[in-house]
């Protein structure tokens, strides 16, 4: 780190901010059902996840040398401005989906941001269309199906096997098992996602000529990326935890265990076999699957539908914001400054909007009271409803819809 220019410095800080949003966005993946079944208290759960994310960041030495996974031609004149713009797009989309309480893939936001920024600043030659389909679209469709079916089958099986046993007697065992599988998900998340940020920072350092191409990330990069993701995880994205833990379906300990085990298995199998699936989509899918697997369990399709819409929008929306940011940043130093100021402004606005109806560790297990959606109501009419009122938390989504257009044009 001989001479880090101001621009590179800005990119590094932005990358760390993205890592931080990635952390609190994805806490829910590992911990939502753990918290909602009461296996761990909310604060304990996020603390454990944070520590495991930090550990995970240091575990793997195989660094994501191509941060974009071959989606973007990194040789085609990617400059720090482009990376900066891509990161801004990813952060803005991450914050918007967090405000809506919707789990969406942070990696897809990062990909979308980088794609949008590259398209504007380098042109279509800098993006590999094939790789987008292969690495983003197909996994996005397959992940929830694979994880959902696995979790559904596992839920069915576990309920069948434990028939004749008191739920209170078995709950403790399920909760213990759930903690183990949640820990695995957290650890895997740390190795994967912290690596992405390290890759981004390393790429910025390489493009700025600070370190030689193809070199490993310096230790301070590893440490800061690990700390950023751990801090984000510890703060906890309570909104998304609420949606995943209480919003999609009502999770009992047996289901939570089946869902978490399914998620951990799918994540490890996919990354081991080499067909990377997004953690977020795997976890959401397995939670829905476990909801369908229990007799009388109901998936709130209105919430699930909004989640799927968010998944479809992630790539284009982050790309659009990043494209605009790249256009501005290309205008010169004042453009970069403008993007930074606008980005900070949008983040501040989203944070202010979130304060109007805060979700914290204290009310994370209380589902938002709201009339059930049309599909849910129709399903209830067809299938006999289980005990307990059904409520879909749609209020937070309505809130998020308002600031969305403003952000897209920034």
């Amino acid at each position, binding site marked *: 780190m001989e001479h880090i220019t101001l621009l590179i410095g800005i990119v590094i800080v932005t990358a760390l901010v993205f890592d931080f949003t990635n952390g609190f966005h994805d806490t829910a993946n590992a911990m939502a059902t753990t918290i909602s079944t009461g296996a761990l208290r909310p604060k304990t759960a996020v603390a454990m996840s944070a520590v495991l994310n930090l550990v995970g960041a240091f575990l793997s030495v195989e660094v994501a040398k191509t941060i974009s996974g071959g989606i973007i031609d990194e040789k085609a004149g990617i400059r720090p401005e482009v990376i900066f713009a891509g990161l801004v797009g990813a952060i803005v989309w991450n914050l918007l989906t967090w405000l809506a309480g919707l789990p969406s893939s942070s990696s897809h936001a990062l990909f979308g941001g980088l794609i949008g920024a590259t398209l504007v600043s380098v042109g279509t030659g800098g993006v590999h269309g094939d790789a987008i389909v292969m690495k983003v679209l197909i996994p996005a469709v397959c992940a929830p199906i*694979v994880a959902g079916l696995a979790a559904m089958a596992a839920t069915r099986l576990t309920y069948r096997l*434990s028939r004749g046993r008191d739920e209170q007697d*078995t709950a403790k065992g399920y909760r213990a098992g759930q903690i183990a599988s949640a820990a695995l998900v957290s650890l895997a998340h740390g190795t994967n996602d912290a690596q992405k940020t390290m890759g981004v920072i390393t790429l910025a350092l390489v493009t700025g000529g600070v370190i030689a191409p193809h070199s490993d990330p310096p230790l301070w990069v590893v440490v800061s990326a690990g700390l950023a993701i751990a801090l984000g995880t510890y703060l906890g994205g309570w909104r998304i935890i609420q949606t995943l833990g209480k919003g999609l379906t009502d999770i009992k300990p047996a289901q939570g*265990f089946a869902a978490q085990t399914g998620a951990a298995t799918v994540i490890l199998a*996919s990354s081991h076999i080499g067909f990377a*699936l997004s953690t977020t989509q795997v976890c959401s899918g397995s939670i829905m699957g476990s909801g369908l697997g229990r007799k009388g369990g109901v998936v709130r399709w209105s919430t699930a539908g909004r989640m799927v819409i968010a998944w479809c929008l992630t790539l284009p929306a982050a790309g659009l914001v990043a494209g605009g940011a790249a256009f501005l940043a290309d205008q010169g130093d004042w453009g970069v400054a403008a993007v930074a100021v606008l980005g900070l402004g949008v983040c501040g606005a989203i944070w202010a909007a979130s304060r109007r109806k805060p979700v914290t560790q204290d009310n994370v297990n209380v589902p938002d009271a709201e009339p059930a959606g049309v599909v849910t109501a129709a399903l209830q009419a067809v299938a006999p409803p289980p005990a307990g009122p059904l409520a879909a938390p749609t209020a937070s989504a309505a809130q998020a819809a308002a600031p969305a257009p403003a952000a897209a044009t920034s």
Partner: protein
Amino acid sequence: MHINWEALGQVFGVSLVVTVALVGVFTLGIVGTSPRKQQQPDGTVTAGTVPTALGRTGAYACFALCAAAVGYGIYLIVAK
């Protein structure tokens, strides 16, 4: 465009089998350590019978198997 269907199929198969097997084994462990509910003819439920030593041993073997699976999972994460 090349889509790696084979890898996708593998992920699908492995995930399904491993998840169901793990959850099944773990459930057997839970079943082996928890008392059986007994339904009397008149419909009331009395306190369950204590699991036998055999059941308990089998259950601990199940839990050990699951612990080994978790260990293998950690190995996969670290060795990547």
